[in-house]
């Protein structure tokens, strides 16, 4: 792991934060959208024992941003880190989003699952962006974060909230399904809670749309060393999420 300076750690909601790290040129060049890094607290305490994995949300001018949600002790500790202190990072990890994306493309994010699409949009040509739509859902208005940032890419931004406080009222998958009656996508990349991904996989079955899912799992190493982060493959055997993923073709895995 290498030390990385915390430039800013901005609370966006009670549970979501935006962490900005300074990274060197070398790392900037090495990263591709869809990849992740692990972040350790660098305080010599062994609980939590393992650095936690986070998707790159944005990478511009040596500033790497992650969008994180507080769920347990690791992310709770992340939340109180001050600008000016250091964390430890290991990066880049995992595979980038697939190279063979066919457009039009829909990006579907549930909650902080939307994080990685920022970096992807940053790297898409303006031509490609025109053929891309971003679907972003959360439980309520205030949980839809970074909207100005996402708007800056000038892609159609389709929002949904469970309580209807902003955008479509319902799940983001409902909105997508509704839109699909009128609009055509050739590829969909989705990231979010497992029930959302299961639902998508189910509803797109037989649609001819290529569905990729960015998946999560507890990871010990993130480097392929431990062989622990497996998911069963449909064809038998296992994928190692940290090495082969985190983004995989929905039809190839058992959820």
């Amino acid at each position: 792991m290498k030390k990385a300076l915390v430039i800013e750690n901005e609370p966006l909601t009670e549970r979501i934060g935006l962490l900005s790290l300074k990274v060197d040129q070398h790392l900037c060049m090495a990263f591709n959208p869809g990849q992740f890094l692990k972040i350790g607290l660098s305080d010599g305490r062994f609980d939590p024992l393992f650095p936690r994995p986070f998707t790159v949300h944005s990478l511009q001018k040596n500033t790497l941003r992650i969008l994180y949600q507080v769920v347990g002790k690791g992310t709770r500790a992340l939340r109180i880190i001050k600008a000016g202190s250091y964390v430890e990072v290991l990066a880049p990890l995992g595979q980038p989003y697939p190279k063979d994306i066919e457009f039009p493309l829909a990006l579907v994010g549930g909650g902080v699952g939307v994080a990685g699409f920022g970096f992807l949009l940053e790297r898409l040509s303006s031509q490609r962006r025109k053929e891309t739509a971003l679907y972003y859902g959360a439980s309520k208005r205030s949980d839809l974060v970074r909207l100005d940032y996402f708007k800056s890419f000038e892609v159609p931004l389709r929002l949904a909230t469970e309580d209807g406080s902003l955008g479509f009222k319902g799940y983001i998958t409902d909105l997508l399904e509704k839109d699909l009656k009128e609009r055509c996508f050739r590829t969909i990349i989705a990231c979010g809670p497992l029930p959302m991904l299961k639902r998508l996989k189910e509803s797109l079955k037989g649609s001819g749309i290529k569905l990729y899912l960015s998946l999560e799992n507890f990871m010990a190493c993130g480097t392929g060393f431990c062989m622990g982060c497996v998911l069963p493959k449909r064809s038998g055997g296992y994928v190692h999420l940290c090495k082969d993923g985190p983004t995989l073709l929905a039809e190839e895995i058992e959820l």
Partner: protein
Amino acid sequence: MTWKVGNLELKTPIIIASGTWGLGDTLLQYLTPQELTYAVGALVTKGLSLEPMSGNPPPRLMETPCGLINSIGLENPGIKTFLEDYYPRLRELKIPLIFNLHGNSEEEFIRLAEILREVGEEAIELNISCPNVKKGGISFSQSPEVVFELIRGVRKVFEGFIAVKLSPVGPVMETALACESAGADALTIANTYPALGIISYEPLRIIRGGLSGPAIKPLTLRLITEVSSRIKLPIIASGGVMSGKDVFDYLLMGASAVQIGTANLIDPWSPIKIYEEIKELLRSYGRLLDKGNT
């Protein structure tokens, strides 16, 4: 300075433990060959079996306070594929390789040893202590007589260095004595501790596996103190090493070299960092080691 574990000579007392650097293919993504040869005395391969093993279904991991439960189930491509696809690059590193072997029976262990003899490899570690497989593994460790026969059998076909990796539970002292009288060259103490964790209640997700990491170090340090005071075989320590102090503690209590496992998962550079720390400690307190244990 060289470090001797019986007839095995190492450039440093730091060994990378089995199963904590994959099959070796991704190791060099994180460490340069220079870093490795500088800090690492030997590499122990992932547990290898005759036939490929796909390992256990998930969940395979759970973090516990200062520890990790794993239930990998010895996922590996089988010794032949390993020798074809992974071994050539590892051999180029010119760091001694110790082959961690898993057999379901004495015959399988013997066959594995023969295969290694044929490729000219000279060091093996018999994994008789994996808590995560139904057959073989830890069940061996529960019976000193079976272990005695096993080592005798392997010794007949393999003249090189044989380390036996013990389980920390069960009749440890008796098994260690059996290894000694059967002609093993060293003991690796110890594999992971049988453990259980409950990940969630709804759905109920339970993991049975082996506990590793800093949580267990005080236990393995005690075990090694006791075994080293009664048994002459060189001991390779394995359990919760996170720092140079941990390495020095083990050396002080009778170990000849020390393996780093879980720490590699946290940070691939751990062996380098720990090596720097142990060099420093050896400078300050090295003379304590000559006195032997206390």
